[in-house]
């Protein structure tokens, strides 16, 4: 599903210097996997997620998403691919504050050209799936942190993507809600979805099926948890 060969990425600092963030990543994630990327801050895990999520470009190496080589993407094409193949879950939820839970979930469908009526039906179905059907008409600021993240997960799933990318999905949550969100991600994975989680919390990583550890832009370990 996701295949990375010798991936490099550096950022310019000032006029001359570069910060080499990813120094040759080789990673292969198959369909249906539940992978966590672990590493301290500065290890390059967020950069990796941004590249995998087509939010940023890589400098060197190859990236295959769903067997398609990613290169020379313009903004428009990247947006189309993100909409079709990827679902995002962010640490800070990133719900649009003036839209209701239902409208937030329905938004990706708007950009993939689904009709209004259908959007409502599908979005409600996914809200139901994360247990928030009764909260459909509520604005994000009327929801708890855990509820917000579940809305975000519903939004990530609503276009039936190939991969769900979660960037510190529990970073802003307490331990109880962390557990419920992780349960939800596990359920999604059980249904066959590829889930790609970035975290620095051992407890979170331990609930996934495979842990990839990153340090200074390199993979230092890659092991199955036996879950």
């Amino acid at each position, binding site marked *: 599903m996701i295949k990375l060969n010798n991936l490099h990425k550096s950022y310019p600092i000032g006029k001359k210097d570069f910060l080499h963030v990813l120094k040759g990543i080789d990673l292969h994630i198959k369909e249906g996997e539940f992978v966590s990327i672990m590493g301290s801050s500065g290890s390059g895990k967020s950069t990796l997620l*941004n590249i995998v*999520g087509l*939010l*940023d470009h890589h400098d060197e190496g190859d990236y295959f998403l769903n067997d398609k080589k990613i290169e020379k993407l313009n*903004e*428009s094409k990247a*947006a*189309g691919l*993100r*909409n*079709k193949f990827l679902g*995002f879950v*962010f640490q800070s939820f*990133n*719900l*649009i*504050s*003036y*839209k209701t839970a239902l*409208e937030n979930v329905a*938004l*990706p469908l*708007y*950009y*993939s050209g689904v009709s*209004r009526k259908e959007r409502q039906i599908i979005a409600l179905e996914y809200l139901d799936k994360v247990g928030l059907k009764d909260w459909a008409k509520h604005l994000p600021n009327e929801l708890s942190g855990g509820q917000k993240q579940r809305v975000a997960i519903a*939004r990530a799933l609503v*276009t039936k993507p190939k991969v769900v990318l979660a960037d510190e999905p529990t970073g802003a949550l307490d331990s109880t809600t962390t557990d419920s969100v992780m349960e939800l991600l596990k359920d999604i994975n059980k249904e066959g979805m590829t889930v790609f989680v970035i975290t620095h919390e051992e407890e979170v990583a331990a609930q996934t099926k495979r842990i990839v550890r990153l340090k200074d832009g390199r993979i230092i370990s890659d092991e199955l948890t036996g879950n």
Partner: protein
Amino acid sequence: MFDLDRWGEIFQAISKNKLRTVLTGFTVAFAILLFTLLFGIGNGLQNTFKSQFKDGAENAVYIMPGRTTKAYKGNQIDKRIQLKNGDYKAILHKYEDKIEYISSRVYKGVRAIYKSEVGNYTVRAVNPNHQFIEKSIIIKGRFLNQFDLNKKAKVLAIGRLVEKDLFGKHSALNKFITLNGINYKVIGVFKDVGGDWEERVINMPISTAQGIFGNNDHLDQIVLTYNPAMDINQSLSFTNNLLKFLKKKHQISPKDQSGIRVKNVAKDKKDVNNFMNVLNFIILFIGFGTLIAGIIGISNIMIFVVKERTKELGIRKALGAKPKAIIGMILQESILITALAGYVGLMLGMAILNWFGPALKSFFIKDPSVSRGVVIGATIILIIAGAIAGYVPAKRAARVKPIEALNAN
């Protein structure tokens, strides 16, 4: 363009951020309000000038004698110049091909009596062609004719208001009015767009008036219309020649401005038109200036709005919004706000003109209003203005990188 869902998105963004929207629209609403008021007042001024030229023919020329201000050829200063029938004939003879209609005028204040009704009016004794020079419109009977003049007939063509004053609802036609003790027969009633004064005039054959009021051949004025085949410059050179001719004939210094005057209405009208054009230009200039200020204001606020919504735009992009969708959204929002605000300003301006218009009459502003053409033009300009205002912010929004946007707080 007509994507119901996108309109939905925009209406939601606007209605959820009312204060921002109002602030954004305010500058444009104000600009259009100012523009409408200025334009309406300009139109009002124009209407006033236009109505002042409605009276009489557009190619009329008035010859008015006065008193000299310079001694010349043995004549003392302050000599009173008197026009006579000879002048009328001389002008007609010399300039026959340049004149369309010509008439003498003698004025006399009279006390008119019909049965128990009494009123004071002005008699204007004229030649038959005066009807066409003054644009008197006969509504009953006929105007004076050459036969009346030859016979020095005691007949009158009276203004509509004279008939109304003296005869009430009855017709004045063929009735007799007493003017200063002498009976005259009413042979016609006329109306005139020149206003009430013109409709309170009593016309009488010039020969009759000369015989009764002075028993002489004196004239108070000569009026004529120049040949309409001449353009304005030709008519001006004609009236200049005419003035020189009359000054020479009456032994008035060529430098004397007041011995005799020849007033060419077309020239006055041209002067006023030039003045109106300058005024219109100034109004348009100020109007467009304020509009541009409004556009820049909207553009500025939209840039701020894009900055404020960076995160939201980033989220939309992460969820699959293409740059085109983002540009369209910002542009459409800008156009909508500009058009709506502009319309509020326009309607407000028109309402104000409607309410206060009548009260402005004493300031030479008559019927200040804005035409439908201007409203349609303003709509188009507003849509273009909105697009211009939204262009830079929209481009900026499209350039927002999703990661940077998502990291932004």
